[in-house]
């Protein structure tokens, strides 16, 4: 790519000396936090950072990655999307019910993605054309998606389609590792990841390239940074705003498919509160909630931080689930306050 398309969010050249440091402050804090959390985990539980445990951080929260990616687009553009958890559930339910009716996976997967994107399109049009606040429009979409789930089915549907089953069971072996179990026996096991993780990573790569090296990506940043200015500059603000909600819903559809792969079922009450997790991941990853500044890779770090918190809970069975939520809340608060300070410093 040419130099004119260098990564965005940079401070003006006159402040480059400070800006260079400042623009990575938050992402640096997040990375540092992740490392500290992993070290603490290792001190508490010996196998916490063994190879497989690290890959499980991704593997067990794989559907959170697309949600966080989509949410990054929306928040960068200055909006918010509260419907992603419900759209994810809708995706898994549509997939499960169509597969149950005997449709083939080749048809079902595009249908799920199309249905999710259509919902995103409706939301985007409501927000950009009719000037309804993003949060209330996506709230309505959340009700709608969750309601449609319940209309389709009020209980979880198991999936016995061969393709979905194979995605559920598939392991991609990476290398062999010696592990010591509780009784002191040494065993050689394979460290593996799943195809779902690879799909999520591919999506992340695409999102990274789109956001940082495409005209559309720069427009997203511009709209989030200052909407009237970007309108006056002749950027296609409305089209961009519609697009980010379509992207978010599309990502939620992918998350729904990954969820269906992971659980081999479609669950109408899946992902309640996942919109909050996605927002938390984006905030922890250093994206400004007012829009215009942040990195999709930061959101990935945010997902890893959340995954590490969940891993604490998994390694210590006595830990109350409530504490994981409190921890996430405290982290979100910490990063929001950090954002406040960074923004006020930038303005000076």
């Amino acid at each position, binding site marked *: 790519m040419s130099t004119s398309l260098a990564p965005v969010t940079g401070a003006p050249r006159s402040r480059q000396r400070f800006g260079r440091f400042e623009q990575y402050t938050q992402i640096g804090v997040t990375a540092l936090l992740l490392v500290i959390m992993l070290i603490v985990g290792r001190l508490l539980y010996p196998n916490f950072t063994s190879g497989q445990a690290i890959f499980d951080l991704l593997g067990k929260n794989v559907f959170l990655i697309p949600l966080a990616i989509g949410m990054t687009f929306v928040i960068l553009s200055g909006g918010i999307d509260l419907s992603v958890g419900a759209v994810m559930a809708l995706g898994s339910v549509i997939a499960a019910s169509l597969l149950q009716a005997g449709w083939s996976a080749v048809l079902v997967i595009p249908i799920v993605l199309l249905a999710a994107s259509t919902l995103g399109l409706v939301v985007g049009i409501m927000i950009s054309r009719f000037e*309804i606040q993003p949060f209330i429009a996506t709230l309505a979409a959340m009700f*709608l998606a969750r309601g449609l789930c319940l209309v389709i089915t009020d209980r979880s549907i198991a999936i016995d389609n061969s393709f979905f089953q194979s995605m559920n069971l598939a392991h991609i072996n990476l290398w062999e590792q010696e592990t010591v179990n509780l009784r002191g026996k040494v065993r050689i096991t394979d460290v593996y990841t799943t195809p779902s993780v690879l799909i999520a990573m591919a999506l992340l790569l695409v999102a990274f390239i789109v956001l940082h090296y495409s005209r559309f990506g720069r427009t997203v940043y511009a709209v989030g940074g200052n909407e009237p200015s970007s309108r006056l500059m002749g950027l296609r603000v409305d089209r961009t705003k519609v697009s980010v909600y379509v992207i978010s819903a599309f990502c939620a559809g992918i998350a729904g498919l990954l969820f269906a792969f992971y659980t081999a079922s479609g669950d109408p009450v899946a992902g309640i509160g996942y919109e909050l997790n996605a927002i938390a991941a984006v905030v922890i990853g250093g994206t400004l909630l007012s829009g215009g500044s942040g990195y999709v890779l930061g959101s990935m770090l945010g997902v890893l931080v959340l995954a590490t918190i969940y891993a604490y809970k998994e390694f210590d069975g006595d830990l109350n689930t409530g504490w994981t939520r409190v921890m996430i809340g405290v982290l979100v608060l910490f990063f929001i306050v950090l954002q406040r300070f960074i923004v006020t410093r930038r303005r000076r």
Partner: protein
Amino acid sequence: MKKLTSHRLLWPAVVLIALLLANLLWNHSFFDITLRDGNLYGAPVDILRRAAPIVLVALGMTLVIATRGIDLSVGAVAAISGSWASMYIISSADGASVSVVLTAVGVALLMALIAGAWNGFLVSVLGIQPIVATLVLMVAGRGLAQVITDEKILYPDNSPAYKLIGGGYLLAVPFSILLAGGIFALTAVLTRKTALGTLIESVGVNPEASRLAGVRARPIIFLAYVFSGLCAGIAGLMLTSNSTSADPNSIGLFIELDAILAVVIGGTSLAGGRFSLAGTLIGAFIIETMDAFVVIAISARSTDVFKACVVIIVCLLQSSRVRAWLLNVLRWGRTPTRTHHEPPPPTASKDLQIPSPIATDPATDTTNGSETTNGSDTKTVKATS
């Protein structure tokens, strides 16, 4: 002035009456209220009772929204107060004694107050966007409730005194209705008979101008969140004592959405400023009546879809672009394609576009009585242009 207020509540009231009539069509004994064991029973009483917690939460939400804020944490605050009170009553030896219940209620409400003050602090002192600031407590609060109850589902059924709050009767009327009604009346008096309501509105309409006029926004915004927290706390007590169970994961789940919906249906704009407590009350009733109707006429599973459609329709009706478009349709009896395909103009030209058909016809107000606030909208535009 009187005409204006009747205008603002006209449409919510019409919708409510229509829904009640629809219920009557499906269930001919819908309005039958019977007196059994000296207590009132019947579908309308049930609707009022189920609406009571929503009314409470929506009251607090109305004031918060009027200050240009939003409180997403009400469900979590309800979970905290409800589960704490239940936990205390269960673990105490004599759950039936009034003093135990009073202590439980008192401490639970204190927690709700602290939660509200926390939100208020984040918004008014630290200046964090309301949606984000309350999101923190929305995530963490339910976690705290889980910690309080140790992840168990509690059954505080050993205390008739506690059950009174949500499920009991006083003077033949469900106590929760009286409680919600009393708090509603108190709030209405405090905001409308004192300057408080006007101050809240001024902060919401234009924070900068009200600051210049000498209104101190910070304590007002802070108080709005404290009040919202308190209302949510009481709602939490109601919900747990009515169902005699406290599951921190489900107490008040999605009640924030119902409350926001009630406020929006009631005609209070999400952009802040003018608020209508009576509108909120009607909004809450509409939600419960609609739920009752959907359950009878279609199925309990499709209530969420209906709620979503109502939110979308109400929001579209509040949007100025849709109003302008509807107005054109009403005036010329056909859809002018121009409004469909026009490139999205900058706001300035959009504002100028609205008055053009009206400016030519002075009789708009009488012919288009259905457009509730359009009259005032266009007047201001005319004055500026």
